[in-house]
């Protein structure tokens, strides 16, 4: 794979299979997407990503937010998505809160100033 088509930084090629499903532009999308996935997909991502998250953060934190190359930003968005996957695996034991409708009626209308 040449540099132009690389989705993630070197050393994280194994996570590229998750990009299509887990890379989303904002908090609302990350949360909504997780709630609609089968548990085995969530667990697959979670079990892989949780072992890579610390190394990913070590790399990402070397870049100021406003000067992040796209492949670094994409890796970071996968780490952010891990927070949502963990809601399913560490809290509910299923993709979303039991007895709650999906899609639900909660939305973030003003998000974080960085990586909304």
């Amino acid at each position, binding site marked *: 794979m040449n540099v132009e088509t690389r989705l993630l930084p070197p050393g994280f090629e194994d996570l590229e299979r998750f990009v299509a499903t887990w890379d989303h532009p904002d908090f609302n999308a990350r949360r909504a997407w997780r709630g609609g996935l089968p548990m085995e997909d969530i667990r697959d991502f979670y079990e892989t990503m949780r072992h890579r998250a610390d190394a990913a953060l070590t790399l990402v934190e070397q870049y100021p937010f406003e000067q992040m190359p796209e492949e670094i930003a994409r890796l970071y968005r996968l780490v952010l998505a891990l*927070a949502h996957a963990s809601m399913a695996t560490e809290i509910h034991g299923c993709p979303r809160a039991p007895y709650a409708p999906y899609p639900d009626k*909660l939305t973030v209308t003003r998000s974080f100033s960085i990586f909304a």
Partner: protein
Amino acid sequence: MGNDQKISLHAPANESYTRKAGLLPEPVSLESYRSQAFYELERDRVFGRSWLTLAREEELPEPGDYLVRDIEVLGASVIVARGRDGTIRSFHNVCSHRANQVAWERSGNATRLVCRYHNWTYRTDGRLIGVPDEASFERLDKAKCGLTPIATEVWEGFIFVNLERNPSVRLEEFLGGMGDYLKGIQYKYADNPITIEAHLDCNWKVACDAFSEAYHIPAIHANTIGKTFSSQDNKFAHILGANFFGPHRSAALYGNPDYIPGEEAHVERLAYSAIDSANVVAAGSREEMADYLAHPAVNHPKAREWVHDVHAIFPNLHIDTGQGGFYTHHFWPTSVNTTRYEVRFYMAHALDARARFQQEAYLARVMEVLLEDLSNVKRTQRGIDSGGKDYMVLQENEVMIRHSVHHVERWARAQTVQEALA
């Protein structure tokens, strides 16, 4: 010793919270939660006469900044604007010409507010300064045709409005002892409200009640926050204390001081490893918080096993002061059985990737908690509307609900605000 042998682990020895609130442990009528007639009384006598919060001053940092907020129960669209002189004012978003909506954007910065219908032009202090084809208006007195002002006062950074043409009381009198109690709290990160909204299928008080007690936490929030808001020593999340000031009230909630994430909570541990914060629903670090935490109203009992306070400003604002900062809830009636709910978590601007990740994990968990509460309110409203019950029975630690309903009913019956506040 079982909990059934005591009213509360934490109530003063010879006094229950209920009696401290000036109330009795009687069943509470459900009528105010489902009656159209009562809703109309609330419209006119509660929301129509109270001081209501629409924003914080940090949302209008520059002269010319304005925002538009709705008060659906009153049918009002309100422009809140910081004038060129720096003063914050509010107006009905209604053109003096033929009552069209002036500001169509939800926020902005402008030296002029122009009604697009006929281009009538107003300054941000409400003055009418431009009328196209003015000569064709016989006897137009522009000085009398400014935007209709709404009484506005700023208290501790919160922008309050009163929709009475001539407010019965000033804000200071309305807040009374609650204003003194909360005065001087440092509202950390007040310029960064992460805002969540939901439209709910319940009366506004059903939503408000859901955030007024911790009794439900070990049950409905067992997986999300059950272990942080209760423990073997306090299985039912008894509150630590409560204070009452006229129609306003405050309670300190119990938090498990010894909570640590379980072995399998890998991501939770990762998120909270980089920042020393005291609870999974805290977003700030301990050092930043020392002065804020020292305020008498923040963790009033100064208990080690404290997680956050609920300060309820009548009728529909909760200011929660927690370990990592504050957050606010608003419960806006949109009909007798629907509500627009807003919650704002005021958080630091993350300085690095780990801090921002911690915030994502924090907000993700918060959303799961909110979902557990808010997906339940429809069930409660349906039960109320069914007529299957006419009363609810409340325990000691639900005193915030009892106090809220009592004062809403009092205001709905009172001919004057003075009578309501007496």
